[in-house]
């Protein structure tokens, strides 16, 4: 990539400026490499925007599912903390299939205090916030 082709596209994600000025390697007129700073590039900015849109939609959908009693609040907070089942399982020190079961409202209701505390601490919330979700 030539120096003059280096894009400077600010990373606006969900209306917020998330630009992280970074170093790229580019060539000058004689083809010599040098490093240069860039604000970002529309292609990568779009890919990141798209990833966040997907996450946000997923969180909203899951919130509704918790409301309708289809999944437990753990499913919501897992997504809210950008985790998936394997990551959450390693944070709470449980098997993946165990965590998967805890996503069922019927199983969630029977969880003991200790287990709930484990999840709440990983999500950085109180047990009440976890069990009473969604309040509104």
């Amino acid at each position, binding site marked *: *990539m030539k120096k003059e082709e280096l894009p400077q596209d600010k990373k606006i994600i969900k209306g917020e400026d*998330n630009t992280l000025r970074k*170093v790229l*390697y*580019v060539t000058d007129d004689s083809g010599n490499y040098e490093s240069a700073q860039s604000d970002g590039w529309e292609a990568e900015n*779009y*890919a990141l925007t798209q990833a966040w849109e*997907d996450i946000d939609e997923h969180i909203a959908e899951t919130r509704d599912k918790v409301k309708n009693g289809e999944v437990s609040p753990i499913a919501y907070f897992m997504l809210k903390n950008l985790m998936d089942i394997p990551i959450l399982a*390693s944070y709470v020190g449980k098997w993946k299939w165990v965590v998967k079961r805890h996503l069922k409202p019927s199983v969630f209701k029977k969880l003991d205090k200790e287990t709930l505390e484990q999840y709440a601490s990983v999500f950085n919330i109180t047990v009440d916030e976890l069990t009473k979700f969604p309040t509104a």
Partner: protein
Amino acid sequence: MIIDNFEHHQYAHCESGVTVNLLRYYGVELSEPMIFGIGAGMFFGHLPFVKVNGVPGTTFRIWPGYIFKRVSNQLGVKIKVENFKTPEKAMQALDEVLASKRPAGMMASVYYLNYLPPAFRFHFNAHNLIAFGKEGDEYLISDPVMESVAKVSSEDLAKARFAKGFPEPNGRMYYPVQAPKTVDLTKPIWSGINQTCFFMLTPPVPFFGVKGIKFLGKKIKQYPAKLDPRRSALYVGNIIRMQEEIGTGGAGFRFLYAAFLQEAGKKFGNDELLRLSQEMTTIGDQWRNFAYSAARTCKARSGELHSYDELGDMLIDISGKEKDFFEKLKKVAKSWN
């Protein structure tokens, strides 16, 4: 407490940047491309069955920790690498290392690093940074992707060092202990080139090296038939992110590698390396074209067979170019021996 003569400089990639900054403190002054090339950092891998948040993993670099270890080994720098069982032990050991006036490299999750823009903070655990001081409860951090020095609370740093998921940092801390007064780069450079040729050309499975690029190209062609338009777009979007988002220097490390070959070519007066550097720049430009077209395809969300087919063809073409490139590079490296 601050290690005064430690200098922070911004670089493209976290692990090679950390290595440059650490080695400079011990008097070994090398450029980032040189470190990346000697460290044989360039690679390609696509693992359709290893999914992160439901999206298959793609990498443009060798596994974490490899560059620092390889460079140190090649240059005769003695290092110490430690993992820890508990955050308490890990943080105590860090304080002791800092007290002995040694800047400490660490593996960390970006999720807990508050100084990064929020949109970047995923559970990505293979990030690298250096601590070079402590003020009250905060550590002074040299993170190569940052323009200036950052600060992190001890609580957040402990969390970042003990993040869960894949890979788990387990508090990994690493630092040089002793460096030679002078280093001869001839053997390390050629050895690094040979190693990268090996990584790119010889893996017997289809997921890695030049074969992996072709493999991914074929997979992309199947996306519209196998996935809904949204997942197809997310899968391809993830490749763009791995290739460009942070820390690759552009085109998934291809420009960084071309810069290395140019520096080596000038050093040795080797025209073949200079020519191959140009060739790698052209390949890098092709990767950029791929990312640009891929983003447009995602935006369209059409899921048209046509565009995904074209994207796949672009990668199959790049795979052939890189295969050809590394076979030539291997020959040049052989003639040196």
